């Protein structure tokens, strides 16, 4: 077990980019996460799988600090964030793309794109993001929510690349999209991975997840019930599918 508080965690390949330990979360009276443990190492794509309501999205929201109540430990590049205020957490170098894409109706496409502040150097400029998603270029003045679902998803992923965060949390980026768009999003995730981004992905679309993921955590009733690498995931594919109810 590497010391998560090490001085140069990001450069040590063994030390996790994100270390979640005993994470519990509540929405009001309902106790949603019951001690989640997840590690994500630098440069990895890790996928959270599980049935609806297993706590996948809540885990991502809890990392960002936007659940009403949470406890346990969440270290980002070795820094404990469990007691940080939400707007400080992203400054530790993590960015979040929510399930509903979180495009603001009252902001233009350009304003949506330029909303997240830079948290560290190395973020993409507006032009670089538009090169990545050229469809957005002609629509910069329209309201964010006037875009198609696929374009909104590209905007949602594109805008978190400007922050300079190297750890990206993506919540169901393929949900409700046409196969050609899903293919494009898959390419984008591959490209981000090649560039060394670390990605924690929530995905219902297991076949899509298999094209990008290095490791899998299976959640059930707010707990991690299994972890798999690529190999063991493929070996146990059928029993996993049964378990996930896919």
């Amino acid at each position, binding site marked *: 077990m590497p010391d998560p508080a090490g001085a140069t965690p990001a450069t040590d390949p063994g030390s996790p980019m994100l270390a979640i330990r005993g994470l519990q979360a509540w929405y009001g009276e309902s106790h949603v996460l019951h001690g989640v443990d997840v590690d994500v190492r630098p440069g990895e794509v890790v996928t959270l799988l599980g049935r609806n309501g297993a706590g996948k999205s809540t885990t991502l929201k809890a990392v*960002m*600090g*936007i659940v009403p109540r949470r406890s346990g430990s969440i270290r980002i590049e070795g820094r404990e964030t469990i007691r940080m*205020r*939400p*707007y*400080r*957490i*992203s*400054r530790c170098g993590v*960015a*979040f793309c*929510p399930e509903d894409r*979180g495009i*603001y*109706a*009252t*902001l233009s496409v350009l*304003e949506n794109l*330029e*909303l*997240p*502040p830079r*948290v560290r150097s190395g973020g993409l400029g507006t032009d670089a993001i538009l090169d990545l998603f050229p469809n957005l270029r002609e629509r910069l003045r329209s309201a964010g929510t006037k875009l198609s679902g696929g374009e909104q998803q590209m905007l949602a992923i594109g805008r*978190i690349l400007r*922050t300079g965060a190297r750890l990206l949390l993506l919540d169901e980026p393929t949900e409700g999209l046409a196969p050609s768009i899903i293919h494009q999003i898959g390419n984008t995730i591959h490209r981000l991975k090649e560039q060394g981004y670390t990605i924690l992905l929530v995905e219902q679309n297991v076949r899509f997840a298999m094209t990008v993921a290095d490791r899998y955590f299976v959640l059930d009733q707010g707990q991690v019930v299994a972890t798999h690498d690529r190999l063991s995931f493929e070996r146990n594919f059928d029993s996993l599918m049964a378990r996930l109810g896919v």
Partner: protein
Amino acid sequence: MDIFGVPIQAMMGQLMLGIVNGSFYAVLSLGLAIIFGVLKIVNFAHGAFFMLGAFVAFLSGRYLGLDYWAALFLAPLIVACIGMAFEYLFLRRLYGLDPIYGLLLTFSLVLVLEGGFRVAFGSSGQPYPTPEALRGTINLGFMILPIYRAFVVVAAVTMCLATWYMIERTRLGSSLRAATERPDLTQAFGINVPLLVTLTYGGGVGLAAFAGVLAAPIFHVNPSMGSNLVIIIFAVVVIGGLGSIVGAIVTGLALGIVEGFTRVFYSEFSSTVVFLVMVAVLLLRPAGLFGRTEG
């Protein structure tokens, strides 16, 4: 020359009065709309902050020798600071609760402020001199235009446009709109939403104080000067559409003018007409004239 039997001089005079009142409505309802948009709090104390602005101008003139121009600049800042302290210490504890709590707390602030000033200064009102440069009138031929009233309209409209520009066209404004629409997500992007909320409250009540200073030379500075206005302001915000910036500005000015004309033709009716418009708008467009219906 007459229009419907009303001399044009009287008509224009009432129109001018309507535009001046409308300017106050616009600045005040703009602040109220911004605060409601971001805090989801109905700021019942808005009229009290308007009154506070006028009193800060009056007191700083009497005890510190500050002139009108200094007061026009400083009083909104001072009142904004008081508002931010109030938000930070009290109001923020009520976010997410039933809106009635916010209404009760801000209403209690009205009682405290108005009561306090009534004890200290009585309820009769203190005169505040019109700044020298703006005294007198201009004869436009069809009407006599008091210079100070024209200045009030120009200052109020300028302030409204500046606020609109700040919200709709700047980076701070886009963060503010994002915080209005999705506070949680906006925080997750690293934007300090609690600070934005505090600044918004400060800005909103600062606008009220700005209107208060503008009003000081026209109305006497008195503890209940805000209460008389605030009910109409609520009607303006409801007619314009809760939280709508453009709605608050346009509706504020328009209702001032409607009131002015009503005073010409049937003056007994002029204090009621705003509420009739409100009833009509609520029946026909429940989200207000400029409101977005939640989809």
